[in-house]
């Protein structure tokens, strides 16, 4: 007999109505490297075809399967089963509207991303060759550009839970900073103007849940801090 693991998974079926509930499943361990996504796939493919969740790459780069795992946000595909307290409580990302089971509505999250105009803005005519950027300038982008937009940080942020309609949240602010620190971007002033707002930026109270939650080990709090410093610097 293979070793079994116990899971308790959040279920909600909008067609049947009723309250959400936690459902227990038992899954055999497939190997030492088994990830939570393997367990969810086992449930879906062997036990219960109605279990609903998102997944794509299965290796932590696409950002589809952000979930709340034993109370901590993370990606199912890179979270090892070993070391998780059982039964493993699997819930959708907190504070999000649930569409079904573990699938949440990401529209508002992506709308906020769009709001910061996350694209390179420059008025200088394009050079014939690439825009030059020194390795040191490029190193400024490390820890910024790797974000996969999974939403784990933003949905772990209490400030975003309270004021998510107006506070942009850590993922979006990290991306705002990604353009502010890019030596090729020429719109820093406009970007700071847009962010200098009691809600959009300053609802960050450095709780630092975002940093704890990020599956790519990025640090949105530091990025937000950098934006605040940039705003402060131009006042003096």
């Amino acid at each position: 007999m293979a070793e079994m693991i116990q899971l308790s998974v959040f279920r909600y079926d909008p067609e049947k109505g009723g309250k959400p509930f936690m459902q227990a499943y038992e899954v055999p361990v497939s190997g030492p490297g088994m990830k939570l996504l393997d367990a969810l796939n086992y449930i879906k493919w062997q036990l219960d075809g109605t279990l609903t969740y998102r997944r794509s790459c299965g290796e932590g780069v696409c950002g589809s399967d952000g979930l709340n795992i034993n109370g901590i946000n993370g990606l199912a595909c890179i979270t090892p089963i070993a070391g998780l307290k059982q039964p493993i409580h699997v819930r959708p990302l907190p504070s999000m509207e649930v569409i079904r089971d573990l699938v949440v509505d990401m529209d508002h999250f992506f709308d906020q991303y769009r709001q910061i105009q996350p694209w390179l803005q420059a008025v200088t005519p394009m050079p014939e060759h690439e825009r030059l950027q020194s390795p040191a300038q490029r190193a400024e982008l490390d820890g910024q550009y790797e974000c996969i937009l999974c939403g784990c940080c933003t949905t772990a942020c209490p400030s975003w839970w309270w004021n998510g309609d107006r506070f942009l949240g850590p993922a979006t602010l990290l991306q705002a900073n990604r353009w502010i620190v890019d030596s090729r971007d020429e719109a820093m002033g406009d970007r700071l103007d847009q962010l200098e707002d009691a809600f959009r930026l300053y609802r960050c109270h450095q709780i630092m849940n975002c940093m704890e939650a990020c599956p790519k080990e990025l640090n949105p709090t530091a990025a937000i801090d950098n934006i605040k410093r940039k705003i402060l610097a131009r006042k003096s």
Partner: protein
Amino acid sequence: MGYLSTDKVKHHFHDVVIIGSGGAGMRCALQLADAGHRVAIITKVLPTRSHTVAAQGGINASLGNVLSDHWQWHMYDTIKGSDYLGDQDAIEYMCRAAPLLVRELEHQGVPFSRLEDGTVYQRPFGGQSREFGEGGQASRTCAAADRTGHAILHTLYQQNLRAGTHFYQEFFALDLITDENGCQGVMAWDIAKGEYHLFQAKAVVLATGGAGRVFKMTTNAHICTGDGGALAVRAGLPVEDMEFFQFHPTGIADVGPLITEAVRGEGGYLLNGDNERFMLRYAPTAGDLASRDVVSRAIALEIREGRGCGPNKDHVLLKLDHLGTELILAKLPNIHELALRFAGVDCTKEPIPVQPTMHYTMGGIPTNRFGEVVSKGADGVEASYPGLYAIGEAACVSVHGANRLGGNSLLEIVVFGRACGNQVLKRLRHHRYHPPLAPDCWQAGMERVEGWLRTAGKQDGLKIAEVRLRMQTIMQDHFSVYRTEAVMAEGVERIEALAAELEHAALSDGSRIFNTELVEALELDHLMALARVTAAGALARTESRGAHARDDYPERDDADWLRHTLAGIRDNKVELDYKPVRMQPMTVPSFPPRKRVY
């Protein structure tokens, strides 16, 4: 009176509809949206979840930032890498356009790694040479660390946000709407809401990516199910060269995630169970940077002859710790992370266990170098299919022929995404209005969903997941790195039998709201169609070329097989046809087939 004979289908009008939000679809959309057209991207996932995001090593362009380079050398390498099955006009077009497209990506904001002089960092990759194979290793692959695909996909998404492209997210394309005038649009299913949508368009672009999930062990995402190719087959069109699936030499053993060729480009190498650098035996000049098919076959042979590693001797080792922690963390951070997570190995200290793993679909929907889908007309002459386009891994232009070079897939998606956009612009000049459609054209698409939903809860139905696993196992066992007549013939029989069983499969989920089991069933329809044509095409090709390696026909046979396979399904039977390789480039002399040595 409405346009359609139902009110259950929402009818949209766009200038262009693109199916797929990977790099190819996004680049094409950008070209058209920036020109002021109403462009819709229909994608079955959220944007940035597409598999372009997983590309690691880089994108080829003869920028010459590290070592002097020329697009003709790039062209030669690509043709040689394709084992001469690539169409040389398309390859010339791609290699000439590469520097322009990579600089454009840089201008759009891709965070490329940099050299000391501030230009884009380029690294050596497999199958690359200078001076037509005579000048040693080239350094042609432009990289953003080892997250180049992620960097490019996010940048293209950002540019599409700027350009105002319409995204229909988590919509599944069910059926192409075609009539005597060509392709008029597509029927789609809104996964989240469970509603039907008909997108009418003056041009439809298939940019749906590869079909890696026909195999059991693959580096591909769960979503790589060959949807575009299968939609084309449904519409009565053939797909091209599907027997050529690339096995990447270095997938993490037993689990699949890819370890980029950049590891070997930066100086890593492979070791067998005797601790020998065996690639030097197979490819004395290129060594570990020989073409992918060559390296994969070498690994398979080492394992077959008992020189594998581990308790089961079923993999080899990729050593890179000698590169030093600093270089690994700066240039290969993602590999460090993946090896730690999926192999439990700290690659700054220990080698990574690897084995050849299904990685890339060279075949696809036949197109010309403008992205137009082409097919043989009734008169036997090849012509473009009006209003239908295909790009990226879903398409077969063919720039990869029988074997793709590393770094050419990211290049293909941007080059032909843009080229296709420009070709669609020409069509839009002459097609100003949406023609009326047959009022019942929505029915076939809707029936696909309703047919599956009717099976929900049926007793003794086969599980979707079970049929899929059996299909993947057959493909893995019968059509792997090395192939033989007897094994493949049995494989064809078994896949045909399994395809017949698919109609006995049943859903357990009858819901209309976010029914991912339904999506998996629709994807299985697609995978099964492509598995059938892959199997038939592979069995028929009695030679070894690129990724198609046969024990019983070990040599390339240019007299009989320097031609593309075309495989379609008519009256539920696989039909094979062939067409010549375009050996004539656009402006330079042809590269005739030569013996391939690395």
